[in-house]
């Protein structure tokens, strides 16, 4: 890990960040956090994180936006909702993680070659095209975009899936793709309208 | 005979400060040496120097006296009287060959449970280092010497005088 800047100045903070989080769906209870750490304790992935969920919540609340959005933590969340169901203050930690992931993608600050944000984007692209997901294609695509070398190590799994008839290489698709796109486009239009405001 | 010498120490604690402090040490589960047995008095001023002498005479290796801090006596000034008396007693004990560390006067307030532990542990160690006092044994010896002297006197003195002396 690179040597961190040791002293943080208030000018490093985004004073509005916490307010932004609480204004989003799922972020309402952010400020109620009492830093008990049960989220980090119950999180099966906290040991892989650069900031534990508890610490991330604190950083978000104190306005350390840069640290929060560029952290690995948000991308390691597996959405198991353990933290959310344990939290004594009913903070929707998982939803906050989603919110921070979206913000990180929007601001382009997520770790570049980290596969998860790439996966998320490919996932939504595929839905936009077909309305459904083909796991095989999604995964293949993902590895080719991030770490094609790792793809080779996975070929054994591919063979196994093929053997058991679980692999399909044809994208499944819904019938009324236009209808779905209309819905998604309508939301885009609505959000543009808001931005103009 | 290689067994470690365990001193026996008698303590006189005033009811209001030092005895309460010892209770507090108990409630706080402080651990200290089991060599000190406490006798409760209402005020350290009740302690007659004879009590101290008697304890030594009956085999105590040390005597500890605990009272309220000067100015804090429940009975206004009992501990000042104790102080005066015990200074005199200390001189007397010294003259009898009873070492400094065997008699100790300490002011311990009701809040000083910790001090009870420290004082008892320190004193136990000190007296242990000094070894047994065994004043009763010494007294027996002195008695024996006296008897021998008496016998000697009786032998050499005229009979009627000896009878008179008895």
């Amino acid at each position, binding site marked *: 890990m690179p040597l961190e800047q040791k002293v943080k100045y208030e000018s490093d903070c985004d004073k509005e960040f916490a307010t932004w989080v609480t204004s989003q769906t799922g972020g309402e209870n952010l400020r109620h956090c009492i830093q008990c750490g049960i989220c980090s304790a119950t999180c099966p992935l906290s040991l892989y994180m650069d900031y534990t969920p508890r610490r991330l919540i604190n950083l978000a609340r104190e306005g350390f936006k840069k640290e929060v959005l560029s952290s690995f933590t948000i991308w*390691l969340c597996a*959405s198991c909702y353990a933290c959310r169901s344990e939290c004594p203050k009913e903070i929707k930690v998982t939803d906050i993680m989603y919110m921070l992931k979206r913000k990180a993608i929007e601001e382009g600050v997520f770790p570049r070659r980290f596969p998860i944000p790439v996966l*998320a984007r490919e996932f939504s692209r595929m839905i936009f095209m077909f309305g459904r997901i083909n796991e095989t294609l999604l995964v293949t695509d993902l590895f080719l975009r991030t770490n094609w070398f790792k793809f080779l190590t996975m070929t054994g799994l591919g063979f196994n899936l093929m053997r058991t008839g679980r692999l399909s290489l044809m994208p499944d698709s*819904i019938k009324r793709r236009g209808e779905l796109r209309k819905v*998604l486009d309508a939301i885009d239009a609505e959000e543009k309208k808001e931005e103009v405001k | 005979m290689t067994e470690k010498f365990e001193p026996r120490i008698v303590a006189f604690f005033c009811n209001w400060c030092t005895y309460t402090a010892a209770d507090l040490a108990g409630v706080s589960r402080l651990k200290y040496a089991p060599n000190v047995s406490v006798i409760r008095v209402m005020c350290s001023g009740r302690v007659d120097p004879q009590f101290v002498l008697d304890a030594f005479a009956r085999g105590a290796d040390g005597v500890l006296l605990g009272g309220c801090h000067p100015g804090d006596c429940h009975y206004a000034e009992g501990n000042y009287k104790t102080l005066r008396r015990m200074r005199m007693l200390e001189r007397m004990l010294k003259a009898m060959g009873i070492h400094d560390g065997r008699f100790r006067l300490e002011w311990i307030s009701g809040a000083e449970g910790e001090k009870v532990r420290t004082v008892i542990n320190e004193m136990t160690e000190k007296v242990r280092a000094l070894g047994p006092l065994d004043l009763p044994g010494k007294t027996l010896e002195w008695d024996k010497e006296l008897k021998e002297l008496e016998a000697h006197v009786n032998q050499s003195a005229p009979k009627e005088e000896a009878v008179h002396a008895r």
Partner: protein
Amino acid sequence: MKYQYFPGCSLKGMGKAYEESFLAVSRALGVEVKELEDWNCCGATAYMSVDETKSYALAGRNLAIAERNAGDVIAPCSACYLVLNKTMNGLKEHTELNRKVTGALKSAGLDYKGTAKVRHPLDVLVNDVGLEKIKKHVKAPLSGMKFAAYYGCQVVRPYATFDDQDEPVTMDKLIAAAGAECVTWPLKTRCCGGSLTGTVPEAGLRLAYIILKEAKKRGAQAIVTPCPLCQFNLDGYQDQIAAKYERIDMPVLYFTQVLGLAMGLSASELGIKRGIISAEAVLAGR
């Protein structure tokens, strides 16, 4: 008993065996299920990371279609079950979100009212069909078999309406009804790392290994799960786990497969062969 059925992408792909066994068991129990017409992907966990409103709209389309017909919606996939429920909850709680999403749906001729009811097959089997009825259908009880009931995260969290979040029991009851025994273990709802194994294998594999190892240690002959992602993750990566940690060789079955076997349905009907770690040896021993 008539239900609508939302298979989701997984049950059409890597989780084929789940669909096969679920439909077979339903048929045998006389539960009528009709696949939701022209359903689309629920958005799963990934879409939420990209666009929140759209992810609600995606699920909203399915719910709007479901509302056109009578009958609760059964969503066997944990992620689908969670996302559909989350959508309904979110649209109920947040009026602004509701306005945006229903507006967008309306523009495509879809009417969302929020009246659908999304349920999990565990819920339907235990609470609607009932254990008594299921026991009557058990023709070949799996006596002497020991399973580890593994629920995974998203069936019970955070919308556990039909079971406990920390100590769920519905699947245990079904396994018991099938005549088998369940091991007692504390990892019933611990995350298997499914959403990470493909992307951050060092984390994902370890989480899966923890589950497999503990199940084995507790004497389970197989893990039984209601989640296609968990099944894939626990079943599919055992070679990698063997390379990194140790070989476990633990078959991972769907609870519908276990029920089906006890009800005397054939292994091929239930997609037993689709397991990468073969369950045949274990099942032959019964």
